[in-house]
């Protein structure tokens, strides 16, 4: 976490504390603090409706099959998330607090596969382009933290019943480096490299090189219902709308280290591919699964 995040957190707690000084005597049986933990999931609506836009396929991802050293193309239909929040009631129909969310982005199969590049260094034989190559699609962990404001209709009484939560915060996206990723492909079209034939590489990517964070903004809205089951616990269900946006990060290398053990050509190619295509994929992904249904528990105290 950066200094910026710490500052944000401090501000949020201060905000909650100040709000508390004006608190009115309301709440659920006099209790005004709410801690909730919930899980949610949604369909990746846009990729399902429009799987391919141009040469980009956002629906599928590649899974490396270790047993026969091959890639399977799988469909990425759902996305899930885990949320937690702490809120404090400041009026009968108003609460403020902070909310955290964890979700994952599965990069699509085309991140490497369908992009074509030209390299002037190889202009002697014409433009070299990357033959459609494949990589086991990397996963990204996405952590969001946002201040939230929760409102309920005038006649309702927080935390029970229907409520609307709005939030605007930051998210940080990190490649899941606990997994191994494989690359298979050639920077040169078959037959164009003379007698040597197409150059095939088939290598393990060193994920340690992906430790840099991508940053983004996210806007959050949630409509939910809290249904009391005991004096201190409620069931929460509803749906969320989250629109994520990844900040442009062009020119900055994602991988600072050499990802491939051999072949300086691959090295240069891959650096550009990874930086730009990852960013594109992340930026798109935030828009692909806007809606998710949520179910969780709220503890009131």
């Amino acid at each position, binding site marked *: 976490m950066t200094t910026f995040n710490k500052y944000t957190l401090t501000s949020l707690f201060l905000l909650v504390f100040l709000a508390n000084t004006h608190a009115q005597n309301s709440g659920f049986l006099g209790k005004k603090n709410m801690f909730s933990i919930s899980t949610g999931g949604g369909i990746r609506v846009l990729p399902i409706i429009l799987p391919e836009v141009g040469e980009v396929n956002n629906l599928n991802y590649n899974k490396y099959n270790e047993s026969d050293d091959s890639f399977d193309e799988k469909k990425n239909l759902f996305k899930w998330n885990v949320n937690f929040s702490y809120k404090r009631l400041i009026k009968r129909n108003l609460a403020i607090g902070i909310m955290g969310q964890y979700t994952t982005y599965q990069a699509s199969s085309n991140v490497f596969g369908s992009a074509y590049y030209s390299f002037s260094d190889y202009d002697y034989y014409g433009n070299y382009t990357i033959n459609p190559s494949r990589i086991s699609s990397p996963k990204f962990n996405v952590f969001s933290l946002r201040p939230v404001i929760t409102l309920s209709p005038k006649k309702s009484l927080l935390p*029970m019943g229907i409520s609307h939560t709005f939030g605007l915060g930051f998210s940080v996206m990190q490649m899941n480096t606990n997994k191994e990723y494989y690359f298979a492909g050639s920077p040169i079209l078959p037959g164009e490299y003379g007698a040597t034939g197409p150059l095939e590489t088939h290598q393990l990517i060193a994920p340690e090189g992906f430790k840099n964070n991508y940053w983004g903004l996210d806007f959050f809205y949630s409509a939910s219902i809290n249904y009391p089951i005991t004096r201190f616990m409620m069931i929460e269900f509803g749906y969320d709308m989250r629109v994520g946006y990844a900040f442009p990060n062009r020119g900055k290398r994602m991988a600072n280290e050499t990802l491939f053990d051999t072949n300086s050509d691959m090295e240069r190619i891959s650096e550009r591919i990874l930086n730009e295509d990852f960013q594109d994929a992340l930026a798109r992904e935030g828009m692909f699964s806007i*809606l998710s249904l949520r179910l969780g528990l709220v503890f009131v105290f």
Partner: protein
Amino acid sequence: MPDDFALMTFEKVNEEKDIVIDGLGKKESKEFIKGIHYGIDEILRSGRVIYGDEMTEYVTRVGEKITGKNSDIRFYILRSNVVNAFSTKQGIIFVTEGLLAQLSNEAQLAFVLAHEIAHYQKEHVVEGYKENVEIARSRVNNDSKIKQLSQYSKEKEFEADGVGIELYNAAGYSKEELFDVFDVLLYSYLPFDLKSIPSTYWNTDQLVIPESYFETEFPDISVEKDYDDSKSSHPNIQSRSEMILDIVENINNWGEARFLLPEEDFYHVRNIARFETVRNDLYAFRYGDAIYSIYLLEQEFPNNKYLQVCKAKAWAGLLAFKVEGRYTSVTTSPSKVQGDPHQLHQLLKKLDKKQLVTVAFRQVADVKQQFPEDGEVEAIYQYAIQHLAREKNFKISDYYEISYQEAYDAFQKSLDELNKADSLTSTDTTEVVKEEKELSKYEKIKRSTGAKEVATSKDDKFDEDDFYLYALSDIIKDDHFKQSYDSHKSDLEAKEEEEEKKRQLAYSERKRLKKQEDKEKIQMGLEEIILLEPRAIQVKGNDIDIEKSEELEIDLREVVERFHGNSNVSVYKVGSHEYKSHGTYMYNQKAALVNSLSHLIEYEEVSVFPVDYNLNKEIINDFGTGKVAFIIIQSVHQRLSPRKIVFYSIFPPVWLIAGPVTFMKSFYTNFGVAVFDLETYAFNVFTNQQISGFTSKMEMEALMYDFLNQINKTSDQ
């Protein structure tokens, strides 16, 4: 306390849960048992049923003449002026006060009871249910269904008459009274007696209502005996009388008794019922009917304080409704009133606003003068003055300080003087004119404003329509009246001034002020409150689901039972749960509160005076507070409209967003609370919380907790 009142509906249903009624399946039997208990318990819980009193005891004794002492039938009195009696599957026979008030002797009551006992013995309620099920399933049009139902119902009425006559005969009553019972039913729309109110009834030293205000001709009493009963539940009177005649002629051993119990007991009970009809009329805002019944009772009970107080309440009610512009809602069109009462209703219609307000206040003031020290009468008097102060056309300065009679005499005298002067010489005439000119300034002012009674020309006639201007001649000189009037007037003016100031404010400021006022209404700083038994209703689509409502109500009562308020507010529960510990005392408290609530809510916009003023005072003394909260929970499940289904089918993606919203919004709980004050006899606040989602006990408890917190706070907190 009888079990009929003490047990909860679900307890009664549980007791009979294994009963399967002949001719009905298990499920239908269950539905039937649940239905009858729910329906009858609604009446038992209405606050309008009484037991253990002299009327109930007398009716039970007459009933026992028919059934014998060991019958399982229970008799209760229903506080209603409708002339009726009805029996239930449970073995309860309800007799209305209206019926008791109208009967002429014990034998007539005995036949009505015998008829109802016959319904019970022949299990007509169950039979009727079976027929209803059968008819509902049949494939005929609605008109035919109604006729068929009516036919079945009439058959049962004939059967009840037949069996009833046998029971009646066996008890030893006279056959002549049988036919008179039908007259009671036929003319039940009329008061319990018919007497013309002489115009002199209204005349006092101060008030004289001119003869021209009383109609001498009015609609005769006419009613058809042989009306079309093809869609009625009961046969017409003609058919019943003819049928009874056949049965009566076939029985030889008729008794002679009109009374088997002491005759004075009947008249005593009937008088109680007749006094009660006045109270019922006041509760139902039938002020004209109440005044007429009071007149009838006054003939037998002159100067009876209860009647006089009721009279003051009735007139004060008319005054208030006239001032508030809702007079027609509490008066009956004279064209609908037959016989002697027509004259009174005609008078009430004929009096214009100023006249009515004055006459009504005069009546209240007369009662005040009769009982000057009585607290209730003083409260009615203040209530009437408060409304006088609200009436813009009422100005004390308009009223003369002399009585009608004095004015009339003065007028006649001045007319005589004019005639006399006319016969004198011209010099003498000049003398009269000169005399006029020599009047002092103050005499002239008095004459021009308050001395209309003086004839200025020999052709003048005494203006009878101004009769009301003399009616308060003594009151306007009374300091107590003047002080009270001025005080109410200045309160009103201060309020109006405040309202005017508010109107001058900017919109945002008005909005803020309104918000503050709303807050103040509920944040009353209360430390104790009476919680009237709450009600729960389950609504599915547009219908009330009786079964679910009952379940919800049981849940709600459980919540109330374990709910003891919080550390700041003491809650005094008044409801059926408390019957088990406090018995009839609590039943009466609840009945009084329910009556007050329904009385207040009828015309929420008009301030009304409590009918049971002293009873309310007792409740305030008993509990130490007059603030009463009534909670009603409505659990709603809205069905998805076909229009939405079609829309979502055409645009499936819309469903993704609209679906969850629709689902979440289709279930909600309305938690409504009305707080009223027995001391001011007005509502303090109505609140309604609407919580989305299913209704649960925990939710109800939380809402009650919140409500108590709100009323405990003061607005500056």
